[in-house]
């Protein structure tokens, strides 16, 4: 695990509020291990999601990446053209959101929306795409993939929706998945199953996963490495067992007690 699929160096994100700058991410350094799961842990407002969206360069216009580099395949994503970024998004790096009900467009079936990613990134024909959608839904463990294809987001249960979202994220075999609190809105048994799914996908698809969460229980089950984030900075970083067994930083201990 010496290789890193992505290296973030000195990433600094600021927001401008009425002419005054507030730093959201403060000189962040982070290596996302190849075919590993790195958990980015922290409380609300610690800059986890901002970091995730910075990687895809999809921050809202009010937020600005002030400096830093994001190396991916020896290329700095912060200097890449928008066209190049569009090629990366979904195809190399994709994202799983916390709330699939709002991350799916309510007016289209989930099959259509998964297919849309395939349509954009591959030149598969119509019937091949449909077959691939079924295959994906099967991979993420949805029962009756063919029937699920035509279901609308509101017709699925929370767990099914999250699986569909993951199917969409792995549609074109990305190398890196940014999972932003993927299980926060699910109940405990479903959380366990989704974690199981992530572990399986990591192994089968050789995925690297950046897991953004505040749930240390999930981290213990899933992550290879943990980085604890507090007020825009990484306060502690190391292998999961080491961090969970012997937390060094006061904030980490606080997180463990409350979580």
């Amino acid at each position: 695990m010496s290789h890193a699929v992505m290296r973030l160096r000195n990433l600094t994100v600021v927001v401008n509020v009425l002419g005054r700058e507030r730093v959201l991410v403060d000189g962040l350094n982070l290596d996302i291990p190849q075919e590993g799961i790195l958990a980015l842990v922290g409380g609300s407002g610690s800059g986890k999601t901002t970091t995730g969206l910075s990687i895809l360069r999809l921050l809202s216009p009010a937020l600005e990446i002030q400096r830093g580099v994001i190396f991916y395949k020896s290329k700095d994503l912060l200097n890449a053209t928008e066209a190049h970024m569009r090629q990366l998004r979904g195809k190399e790096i994709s994202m799983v959101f916390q709330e699939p009900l709002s991350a799916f467009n309510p007016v289209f079936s989930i099959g259509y929306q998964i297919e849309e990613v395939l349509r954009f990134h591959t030149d598969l024909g119509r019937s091949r795409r449909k077959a691939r959608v079924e295959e994906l839904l099967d991979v993420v463990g949805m029962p009756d993939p063919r029937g699920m294809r035509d279901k609308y987001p509101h017709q699925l249960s929370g767990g099914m929706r999250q699986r569909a979202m993951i199917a969409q994220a792995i549609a074109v075999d990305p190398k890196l998945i940014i999972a932003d609190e993927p299980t926060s809105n699910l109940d405990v048994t479903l959380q366990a199953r989704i974690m199981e799914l992530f572990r399986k996908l990591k192994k089968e698809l050789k995925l690297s996963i950046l897991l953004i969460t505040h749930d240390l229980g999930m981290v213990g089950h899933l992550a290879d490495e943990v980085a604890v984030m507090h007020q825009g900075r990484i306060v502690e970083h190391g292998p999961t067992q080491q961090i969970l067994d012997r937390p060094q930083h006061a904030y980490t201990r606080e997180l463990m007690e409350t979580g």
Partner: protein
Amino acid sequence: MSADKKHLSEFQIALRNFKKNRLACLGVVILGLLYVAVIFAEFLSPYSYKNENRNYSYCPPTVIQFFDENRLVWPYVYGRQLEFNAYHGRIYTIDKTQKYPLRFFAPGDTYQWLGFLPGRRHLIGVSEPGRFYLLGADSRGRDVFSRLLYGGRISLSIGLIGVCISFTIGLIVGGVAGYYGGRVDDILMRICEMFMMVPGFYLLLALRSAVPDNFNSVQVYFAIVVILSFIGWAGLARIIRGMCLSLREREYVLAARTFGLSDRKIITGHILPHTVSYSIFAVMLSIPGYILGESALSLIGLGIQDPFASWGNMLSDAMSIVRIKFAPWILLPGFFIFVTVICFNVIGDALRDCLDPLLKSEVKG
């Protein structure tokens, strides 16, 4: 909320609610009949729109006779005699010595149905020299009923085509302005406001006068459509822009971007579909504006030119009180404009009631 009951799609629910509105259903039926009638105008009309006979200027409606000496016979019409009274007014008297039986599929003026299918049969007609004026004649002795059908073709289609053009522009401009926001939004919205600032009718007149006057009728028709839609898009663009401003903040838009979709795909594929229900009833409610705009232009002689008929230019005959007094049937195009506009409004209102998410049937109980 059982799963089976819930399986009515949004569209089915809307349709069910729409059917409850009797007035709107009536509107649909009337409009349907009008559209079918004008599509088959060549066949349904006894005469061509330019078939004139000056001996029958302002001839009153022909009465169809069913009885001859108290016996039921094949329907026929009487001929007419034109006389002038002391004030040089036209008096038409019925000449009972001339009888013209009605003929179905009667040969008459040749036509090309919708411009390509030639024919000369008309649903109903009488043999020459008899004249059959179901709804009276205009100043040149042309059949008002026939001209209503031909004119309806222009008046009814101008709204549809105009709305298509202006909604395409409005959706694109509104979508782009709302999605990008910032400077793009500022520039596009200032342009919109420039169009909205000028009073519509004067803009209409100004644009019309900018069109060369040697256009043929088809060119004039399209010039009018383009001018009308040129005025109509701005208001829609502003509303769509407002909706897009809020829609772009939805997480599925961000999700679509994380999958690398282009801005164009996101606007057309993920944002604009959410404006559909608004757009549908906005379309219905804005069509009358186009019909009235065309009528107004034609009425004052700037639209469709004689001998071509439109409901507007037929009404220009009715601009004198004396004529209306002696030949009230020349007001009929106005009646048809009125009916059409009311129908579109009623349908539009009903659509708004059943498509607007804030007024869902669940809420109303």
